[in-house]
């Protein structure tokens, strides 16, 4: 038997135009080893993973390189030849099982179709379902994908990937879209199966914390190259590449409130890679030589590789614990109070209760987080506060005075004092308005600024959110996701608010960009004394920014308290499950 389950050498993948997407990628995966392939969007990790199956999406092609799976060379083969190895030698678990499972094929058949026709086919499918702990009843196998929950759909996909007993299983962000508890269950199960059956895994993810919980070895990719490769524990505790260091420092930790450090600059896209090291423009330790030649992947001892000329200068990882915010709980004057809030969604006919009996208060300058999984009602509460959703019962008070349920009924001053920033950076700005127009509008509408004065204020506001003034004349389409969210924050600041409601504002961003936005929020609180209502599903975000937290379970607050103590010793069973399931980089 061959030494490695998977060996990749000198892989190069290009756009049809010849522009490289992935270049000079080499790595090894041992038998029964779990490799975490980590990178942010645009790093080329999914392109690399698909290439391991001899597959390139339309518009790209595999230009060079060899791929050996358990001693069998599967690169350089025709589509018909490589097809025979897919699923049998190396199989694939897709990112979004809801889209990847065929909607008109019964789930049992989706697994069964992987096998050749044989009398034992049924039994094999049974075994595979049992492996992933799905019901083996015939009735269940005859269901269509839409009749399964998200977690079950992913288990079906895993069963299909395992049924032919391949040597390597590729998993492409298999837990995206699952809530944390389901994710933790699935990861534990994958790990158990891998130990029992001994296959190797290439686990592709943008989420370092998830990878930390499953991988033996980590490969970090940036701009289509491997920048660091080594044993997981070592890479996570002593990264040698400045990018890995930056990435790890920007991951929030749900257990230990930590100060986040973001990586300056923006990730380079395909076709805009500079000559020399592509990370050089963002690198704090670059030297002149970095901009001239692309460094090679260098062995640094201890089975580790790094692609950096100056890796010896990479500082050690020094997590900085966040100081517990001062005497916050004792502050008497509450800015905003929510009393016995109940909200409903009216569909056709009956109303669905989004939340009920929710009460909390936010003091001047305080940051309160609402945490819950999707469907917990947290966003509806945020919308009630902002006057976008009329509560069915209960009140929202600002400085002790009850507010009208909808924004249109509130005084301009009340509308000015509460601002909201939304989740999706791609629809939070009007694509037809320039950045300056978007930011200036609240100042005109809510503070009575003249057009001129409002436009004058734009430069200051952009600076506040750490954006260059030249962006003022751009359209949102020309900005990155992180830049858009900053502009959205600047727009909220333009109203000179007392409270900003942040509805999952970082959930669509890469982790290093998220760190930068969270950093910004923390700075703004310090500079302007802003209060924040933070809506999130991510306990890590809570621990790095919030003072107090409310945990929502199906529309009801099940536990609340100071962030530090609540995360350290959760009391309610639901909170305990949530905290236990949250992926973390810290050693358990």
């Amino acid at each position, binding site marked *: 038997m061959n030494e490695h389950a998977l060996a990749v050498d000198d892989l190069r993948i290009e756009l049809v135009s010849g522009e490289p997407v992935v270049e000079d990628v080499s790595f090894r995966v041992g038998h029964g080893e779990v490799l975490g392939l980590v990178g942010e969007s645009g790093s080329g990790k999914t392109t690399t993973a698909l290439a391991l199956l001899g597959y390139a999406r339309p518009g790209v092609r595999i230009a060079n390189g060899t791929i050996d799976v358990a001693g069998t060379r599967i690169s350089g083969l025709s589509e018909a030849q490589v097809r025979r190895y897919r699923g049998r030698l190396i199989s694939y678990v897709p990112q979004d099982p809801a889209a990847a499972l065929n909607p008109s094929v019964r789930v049992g058949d989706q697994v069964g179709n992987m096998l050749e026709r044989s009398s034992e086919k049924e039994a094999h499918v049974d075994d595979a379902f049992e492996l992933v702990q799905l019901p083996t009843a015939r009735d269940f196998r005859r269901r269509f994908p839409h009749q399964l929950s998200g977690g079950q759909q992913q288990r079906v996909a895993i069963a299909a990937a395992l049924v032919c007993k391949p040597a390597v299983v590729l998993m492409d962000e298999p837990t995206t879209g699952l809530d944390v508890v389901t994710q933790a269950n699935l990861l534990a199960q994958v790990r158990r199966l891998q130990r029992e059956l001994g296959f190797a895994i290439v686990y592709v993810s943008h989420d370092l914390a998830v990878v930390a919980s499953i991988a033996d070895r980590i490969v970090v990719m940036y701009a289509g190259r491997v920048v660091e490769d080594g044993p997981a524990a070592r890479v996570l505790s002593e990264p040698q590449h400045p990018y890995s260091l930056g990435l790890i420092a920007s991951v929030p930790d749900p257990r230990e409130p930590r100060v986040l450090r973001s990586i300056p600059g923006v990730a380079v896209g395909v076709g805009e890679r500079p000559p020399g090291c592509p990370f050089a423009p963002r690198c704090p330790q670059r030297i002149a030589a970095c901009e001239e030649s692309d460094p090679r992947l260098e062995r640094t001892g201890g089975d580790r590789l790094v692609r950096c000329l100056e890796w010896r200068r990479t500082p050690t990882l020094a997590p900085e614990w966040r100081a517990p915010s001062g005497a916050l709980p004792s502050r008497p004057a509450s800015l905003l109070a929510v009393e016995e809030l109940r909200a409903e969604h009216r569909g056709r006919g009956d109303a669905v209760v989004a939340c009920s009996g929710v009460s909390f208060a936010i003091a001047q300058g305080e940051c309160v987080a609402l945490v819950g999984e999707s469907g917990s009602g947290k966003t509806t509460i945020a919308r009630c506060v902002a006057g976008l959703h009329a509560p069915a019962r209960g009140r929202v008070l600002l400085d002790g005075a009850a507010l009208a349920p909808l*924004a249109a009924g509130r005084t301009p001053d009340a509308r000015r004092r509460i601002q909201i*920033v939304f989740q999706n950076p791609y629809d939070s700005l009007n694509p037809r*308005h320039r950045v300056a127009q978007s930011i200036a*509008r609240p100042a005109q509408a*809510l503070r009575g600024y003249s057009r001129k004065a409002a436009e004058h204020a734009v430069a200051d506001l952009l600076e506040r959110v750490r954006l260059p003034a030249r962006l003022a004349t751009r359209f949102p389409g020309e900005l990155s996701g992180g830049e858009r969210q900053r502009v959205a924050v600047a*727009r909220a600041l333009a109203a000179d608010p007392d409270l900003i409601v942040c509805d999952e504002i970082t959930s669509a961003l890469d982790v290093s960009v998220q760190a930068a936005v969270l950093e910004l929020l923390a700075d703004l609180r310090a500079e302007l004394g802003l209060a924040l209502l933070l809506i999130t599903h991510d306990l890590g975000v809570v621990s790095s920014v919030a003072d107090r937290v409310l945990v929502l379970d199906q529309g009801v607050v099940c536990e609340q308290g100071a962030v530090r103590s609540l995360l350290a010793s959760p009391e309610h069973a639901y909170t305990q499950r949530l905290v236990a399931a949250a992926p973390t980089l810290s050693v358990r």
Partner: protein
Amino acid sequence: MTALAVRLRFARTGYGKVGLAGSLLLLALIAVGPLLAPYDPSAIAGLPLQHASRQFPLGTDGLGRDVLSRVLWGGRSIVGLSVLATSLAYAAGASIGLLAGYTKSILDPLLMRAMDVLLAVPPLLFLLVLATGAGRSIPVLVLGVATVHVPSIARIVRASTQEVATHGYVEAAVARGERLPALLGREILPNVLGTVLADAGIRLTASILILASVNFLGLGLQPPAADWALMISENRGGIALNSLAVAAPALLIAFLTISVNLVADAVARSLGTSTDRKRVAR
């Protein structure tokens, strides 16, 4: 700058170029044609149903009118009335769609049910019924063709409005208390426009098609108007004697609809939508 680039991108595709060139050529013909016409299009210029000759390059029709002159005049009605009908349809359909999509009042289901009913009538049948009840006249024809389009435009604008209304920038505007005209005009309409315009070309093609068909059936424009569709209808009887009197207007209509449709298709593609799923109403 970028907006302009988007608008002109369609001309880069091969079909788009051909269509644009064809459309411009025809527009020029329609605009300048009447000036070049050797005869009055409704005057009897010679003997009926003559073959092509130096005097009458395309021959004469059944009444002895010069076919060339009638062809040179005959594009105005078809293009002018189609553009008019399509514009009217957009004005009405977009207003209805915006209001129905944004205001969650009783208006929405009411308007949409009415639109459902209109969609359940074949367009041509609708126009025939209209011609029966209201007679044959230009206003009836134009309003009828416009009405045929209104339901689908209203639906598209409504769906697009509903989608845009959930976007953060609209909600932010609601939260800062912007009034309805500002909301619709500043935040929603500019973002719905792209989707709406993507369809405009194919709707114009459809307008030309249906308007020409009604004229051909003799239920729209009335003689002695010079109109390509009407000419085909009038001269079919004399096809054996002067086939050019039928062939010339038929080829011109074919040229017109194909050119406009090529542009429509290219524009839609450049706006990121495809016309493949869309229907040319008949």
